[in-house]
Structures are given as structure tokens and as C-alpha cells.
């Protein structure tokens, strides 16, 4: 009898997995400027999909990822979105630059195909187009600055310097920083830009040194240019505190800015003490042989959110998935302890405004959480 049951179970499993897989499109950047961010995010998604399939798939069907590389180019990106939809993708995960994700929306809105970015932070992605098929679960730039400012407020800052790079995202974040600082009544005494491809940031740091600010805020997202800033800061023996955007949460700084970043605070969406994070790190490390970091978590949460929505929808009907997605309430790897992704009525940005943390570099290591949320 037991043998019969086992055979029946095996046959059942084989029949469900013999069904058409659920195809999910992934648009990532494998060679362009976003590659350092897109690649780990995509790895997290691949790991998540493998885990889902190992546990029986979704609605008894396997998840199949159709991965495309848009080089972060909006023109290519839109064409790839169309291609993925033609290939049967019922959902598209966008993991390249914000402008590329925005361009994909023109296609997904037209084709009524659900699309989500688990990593983009541009505030306008869900507001520029009335696209009910698009969601964003990466923490918005405005949440980052608000969290960092909440932490900085306790230090009674009056006069600060703001430094960024000339990338689109760096300038966008600088705008958020500027608005947030002005709203908080903190004076920006000087604002500097280190251009992409610079070989030094010494002139900019000399200007900042000359105005002797209470602290310096960093909005730049280009690693090499940020390292130039840290080098000049150390070379000049400067002492004012540095508060940085989430860009400093990428672990590459631990090697390329070795000896330069002790004491720098940065916004992150990753709390290493959170139980979900500990479990994720253990399982990912066991499966792949290397430890994940926050960007892997964005991708992992992304595919989990999609799978969860399809499960609740009970079918791969795009309209039903859209309705299920909008009702999301899910605790993932990212975010402060207890945070859940959700989309309040009429909103499609799902990262909790109080879900970010501020951490500090201790030596060359990303250290403890020193602040949670915007309060």
C-alpha cells in the first residue's frame, strides 16, 4: 500500500511539473553601468526561484525565469519587455537602471502585464505613469534621506556640506538630500560634484574643508568617485562626520575603501540581526558557497513577492495577479525587524517608510544598526 501511495505521489508530482512552467521575465543589466547592482540582485532572484521550485513550485507549476540584458539602456529595455511578454511572461521583474525600468512601463501598461522593480529607488517611478500594473518595492530615495535625517537630527546639525557625483541617480539623490535638509532647517553651506571619471576629489574637499561644516552628506552612487572623496577626507585629516546614501551599503567599499571608512554612517535596508536575514544568509551560503549581501536580498524578496501574489491569485491570469499583488502583505529579507511590504490604497510603492535603518562602518566592516525608521 505504501509503495502504491509513493508511486501515486511521484506520478502526481511528475504530472504537475510536466505542466507548462510559469514564465517570469527578468530584465537586468549584465554589461552596463548598473551591472554591479543588477547582477547580485539577479543572483538573489535566481536563488529564490530555485528555492520555490525545490519546494514544489507555485500552483503546482515550476517557475521559469526568462532573463534578458538591457545594458541599462531604456531603448533596448522597452523592446525586451515586449519580447518577454511575447514569450509568455506573466510578470516582469525589472533590475536595471531607473530610466530603463520607466521605459519598460510603457510596454507593460499597454500589454496589461504586471511588472515590479525590487531594487530601483527613484521616487517618481510609480507616480509619472498611471500604470496599475507596476509596483516598486525598493526603498524610495526620499525614505532614505528622511531616515538619515532622522538620525542626524539627534546630532543637532546646523551647517552641512553636500557632495554627489554627476550620474543621473546621484543628482536625483542630491535633490532629495537638498530638499530634506532644507525642510529640516539645516543649512547647506556648500554643495560639490565629483564628475564621473575624475582622478581626484581634492579640490572639492578643499572647498568643503574651507567652510568647516558640522557634517557632510554624500549622495553619490559611483563607487570610484566616492572612494576619491574618502581618500581626500583622510589625506586632509578631516574630522566632521560623514552620512551617506544607501550606496555605502554595498560591501565593495570594504575592499576598495579599506582603511578609509571607519565611522561613516549609511542608510541600509538590511538588518544583519533580523531572523529572516540570518536564515537567508545561511541558506544562500549553503547553496552557492558564497555569502549574500543586501542586493541579493532585494532580488530574493522580489521573486518571493511575485510567487506569493500568483499563489494568492490562484491562476496566472494577469488581471488576477494584479489584484493579488495590490493586496500584498509580506515580511521579507529586506527592511527593519518586523517590516512588511504592502501597497496602501492607491499606492504602488511598497517599502515601509519606517523600514530603513542607519548603520555605521566599524573599521572596514559594515557594523551595527544605530537608528531605525524616520522617528
Amino acid at each position, binding site marked *: 500500500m505504501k509503495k502504491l501511495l509513493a508511486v501515486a505521489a511521484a506520478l502526481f508530482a511528475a504530472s504537475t511539473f510536466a505542466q507548462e512552467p510559469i514564465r517570469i521575465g527578468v530584465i537586468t543589466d549584465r554589461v552596463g553601468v548598473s551591472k554591479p547592482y543588477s547582477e547580485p540582485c539577479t543572483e538573489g532572484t535566481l536563488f529564490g526561484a530555485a528555492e520555490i521550485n525545490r519546494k514544489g513550485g507555485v500552483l503546482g507549476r515550476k517557475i521559469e525565469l526568462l532573463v534578458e540584458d538591457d545594458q541599462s539602456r531604456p531603448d533596448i529595455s522597452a523592446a525586451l519587455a515586449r519580447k518577454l511578454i511575447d514569450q509568455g511572461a506573466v510578470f516582469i521583474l525589472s533590475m536595471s537602471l531607473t530610466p530603463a525600468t520607466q521605459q519598460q512601463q510603457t510596454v507593460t501598461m499597454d500589454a496589461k502585464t504586471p511588472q515590479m522593480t525590487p531594487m530601483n529607488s527613484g521616487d517618481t517611478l510609480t507616480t509619472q505613469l498611471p500604470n496599475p500594473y507596476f509596483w516598486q518595492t525598493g526603498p524610495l530615495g526620499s525614505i532614505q534621506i528622511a531616515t538619515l535625517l532622522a538620525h542626524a537630527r539627534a546630532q543637532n546639525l546646523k551647517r552641512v556640506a553636500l557632495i554627489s557625483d*554627476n550620474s543621473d541617480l546621484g543628482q536625483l539623490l542630491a535633490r532629495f538630500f537638498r530638499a530634506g535638509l532644507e525642510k529640516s532647517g539645516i543649512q547647506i553651506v556648500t554643495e560639490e560634484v565629483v564628475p564621473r571619471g575624475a*582622478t581626484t576629489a581634492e579640490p572639492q574637499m578643499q572647498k568643503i574643508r574651507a567652510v568647516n561644516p558640522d557634517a557632510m552628506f554624500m549622495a553619490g552612487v559611483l*563607487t570610484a568617485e566616492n572612494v576619491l572623496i574618502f581618500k581626500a577626507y583622510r589625506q586632509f585629516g578631516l574630522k566632521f562626520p560623514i552620512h551617506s546614501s544607501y550606496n555605502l551599503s554595498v560591501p565593495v567599499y570594504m575592499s576598495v575603501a579599506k582603511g578609509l571608512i571607519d565611522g561613516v554612517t549609511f542608510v541600509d535596508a538590511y538588518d544583519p540581526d533580523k531572523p529572516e536575514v540570518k536564515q537567508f544568509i545561511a541558506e544562500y551560503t549553503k547553496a552557492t558557497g558564497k555569502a549574500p549581501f543586501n542586493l541579493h536580498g532585494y532580488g530574493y524578496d522580489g521573486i518571493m513577492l511575485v510567487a506569493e501574489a500568483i499563489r494568492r491569485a490562484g491562476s496566472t491570469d494577469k488581471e488576477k495577479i494584479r489584484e493579488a499583488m495590490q493586496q500584498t502583505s509580506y515580511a521579507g529579507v529586506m527592511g527593519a525587524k518586523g517590516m512588511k511590504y504592502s501597497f496602501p490604497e492607491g499606492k504602488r510603492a511598497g517599502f515601509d517608510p519606517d523600514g530603513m535603518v542607519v548603520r555605521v562602518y566599524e573599521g572596514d566592516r559594515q557594523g551595527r544598526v544605530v537608528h531605525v525608521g524616520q522617528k
Partner: protein
Amino acid sequence: MQDFLELAVSAAASGCIYGLIALAYLLMIRPTGIINFAVGEWAMVGAFGGYLLLSKFEWPYPLGMAAVLVFMLGVGWLTERIAVRPLVERGAPLLAPILALLGMLVVFREAISVSFPPDPHPVPYALGIQHQSFFIIAVTSVVFIGVWLFFERSVAGKSFEAVAIHRRAAALMGINLSRVTALSFAGGAGAAGLAGLLVSPNVSAHYLMGVPLAIQGFTALVIGGVGRVEGALLGGLLLAFAEQLTVRYAPLPAGYAQGVPLLLLMMFLLVRPTGLLRAK
């Protein structure tokens, strides 16, 4: 005064990097007329060589530096054999090898992009963070003095100049044009690779680092002129000082100083297209 001295050292070091890239262009343009925009990618390859040998395998700096230089000479020689010589031998127009080298630019970048993880890679300082600028200035000075002596004092160098002045006449005089072309590419790759190695402790080795260096070096070349070796260094220094003094002292909103190299490039192309130093 302290500000100015700090800035002078910083600008001189940046100018040396631009100068080395300009030298790489010049070494190829003079005898062949070919503008090779892949010099930026050669600098990137040099930087990754530094990462592999100095960071990963922890070779002693002088040995690692020498190995990178030798490797880059080989890369330049090979590039000429693969992308330039077949076209020249078939009598293709000058534009053909320039386009082929643009293709090589993509090949170099993609080869590095798929061979290494996407993050920037650290390269150690030769003498520590405080002394890197002086090290860059010293190495660049040695390179420029060496190249100047080669062209001005050696018979081989004179043969380069002869080819630059009149290729056919030089060939009739028994100068091996193929060898001169191959050596000019090897020298160009050596200079560019060295620039990449020297700048990489500051900016890290990164697969997208090549294009900005290629643009800065080209601007320096236009300013200094393609006629003389010392023009490349002069152009690089002028460009770096203009950039950094503008950022530090000009009453411009943040970010506007980025336009300085472009303005200089346009100004020289319009007013003095031969650059500051003309060929003797």
C-alpha cells in the same frame, strides 16, 4: 597657500595621467596617422593587471609593475597584428583601422567585464596614500624623459620621426614600416597601461574606467599638439590644472566646472588645431 600647494600636487598627478594617455595616442598617430580610441581600454587592462598581480597575487610592486608593462607592450603589438596590419597590407583607407580599433575597444571592455566580477577592484599604492601623487609624477617624468631621449637621441627614434614625416620616403630609405607601426602600438599600449596602473589605486580597477581616460587623454593631446612628445605632457598638465583650479576657485555652481575640458577642447580645435607645440 597650503590649499594651492596641495592642489598643485594633485593637479600635477592628474595631469601626468592625462599626459601618459595623450602620449599613447601620440606614439601611434605620429608614424601611422591612426587615432586609436581604445587607449582608455588599454589603461583599464593595465589597471586590472595591477589588481591581479599586486592585490590578488601580492607580487612586490616593482616586479608587478614591470610585468604589467611587459604584458601591455605585448597587448599593443598583438592589437596591431590583429586589427591594423591586415587592413594596411590590403591597402584599406585610413578609416578602416580606426574603426577596427573601435571594435577592439569593445572587445577589451567586454573581455574584462565577463572575466571579473562587476564591482571595482582595489589596487594597492606603491608608497602609501600620502605619496601616490609624487610617485605618479616621478614615474611619468621618467617615461617622458625616456621617450624624449629615444626620439631625439637614438637612430631608432629618428626612424619613427622619418616615418612620421613621409612614410614612402622612409620606406625607400630602408626603414621597416611594419616594425615601426608594431612598435608604436606596443609603446602606446605600454604608456596607456602604465597610466591605468598608476591611477588605479585612486579610482580602483573598473571595467568602465577606460572611456573617461580616453576622453581626457585626447583633450590633452589636442591642447599639447601631436607634433612633439613634450606636448602630450604639457597638454595633460594644462588640462588638469584648468579643471582643478576651476573647481576650487571659480565662482561657479557645483558641477559647472565639468565643462572646462570641453571648452578647452573646442577652443583649441577652433583657434589652434595644431596644439600648443608644433612639430620641429
